[in-house]
């Protein structure tokens, strides 16, 4: 077991240089996230709106996957009908 205070290797890790994202990317991410903050603040007084947003976010992939599944099933049955 080791203690951080007296471990030279962990102290050396602290000296590794800081990494930061490219300024343009940092600015873009900050702008997008600030926009989301405004939306979530607007949703705060309207629980139904926040619920709707959450439901939409959860349902979208399910609807897409369902549509793809139905289409594939139709495509396979159509191919089977053409080439029995």
């Amino acid at each position, binding site marked *: 077991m080791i203690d951080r205070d007296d471990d030279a290797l962990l102290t050396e890790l602290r000296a590794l240089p800081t990494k930061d994202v490219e300024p343009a990317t940092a600015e873009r*991410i900050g702008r997008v996230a600030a926009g989301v903050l405004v939306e979530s603040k607007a949703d705060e007084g309207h629980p139904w709106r926040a619920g709707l947003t959450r439901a939409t976010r959860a349902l979208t992939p399910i609807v897409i996957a369902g549509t793809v599944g139905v289409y594939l099933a139709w495509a396979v049955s159509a191919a089977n009908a053409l080439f029995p």
Partner: protein
Amino acid sequence: MDVEDRELVTGLRRGDAAAFRRAYATYRPRVYGFLLRLSGRRDVADDLLQETFLKLARNAPSLREDTRLVAWLFTVARNEFLSYRRWSVLDITRILSFGREQSDAVDEGPEERTEAQARLVRLERALSELPPASREVLLLVGVEGLEQEEAAQILGVDYAALRQRLSRARAELAHRIEALEKRGAGTEPKRASERGAT
């Protein structure tokens, strides 16, 4: 929890844009460095950083008053990374580049280095070669200097397990540094092919 953190959380709970900007400026480099060293890829770290701060923006009004922002952000960032790793199994570009991957976190720097710089390059390279489970504990406790209890909370393990994991990771890191030192990595001038690739 320090006063500045408490003020930030209070501001975030109110949906205050200035508090969000301050939190973003304060924690972005730390979270990004963690993600870059964890994933080894700048593009991935960019995406995961965005997801982390989008989650902060979405959840800001529902943060608890006593939230430790740094722990909250690192927990979300780590979960985003784990989620990325699960999906990356299906990433064809990653499969095709298998064996040719080189961590973006390792910045080779100038050809002529002082011994201290060479040691840092070796350390960074050794860290990038560790398995993610070892790397994450060293990043949180070593690089970020978080308290071990806090790191345990972020990793979802108890304190004793954290200490064990840290001890093992540290030994692995020391072993890899030694191996790199034997190979002379970090001190030799870069080959022309390496220079062309960077």
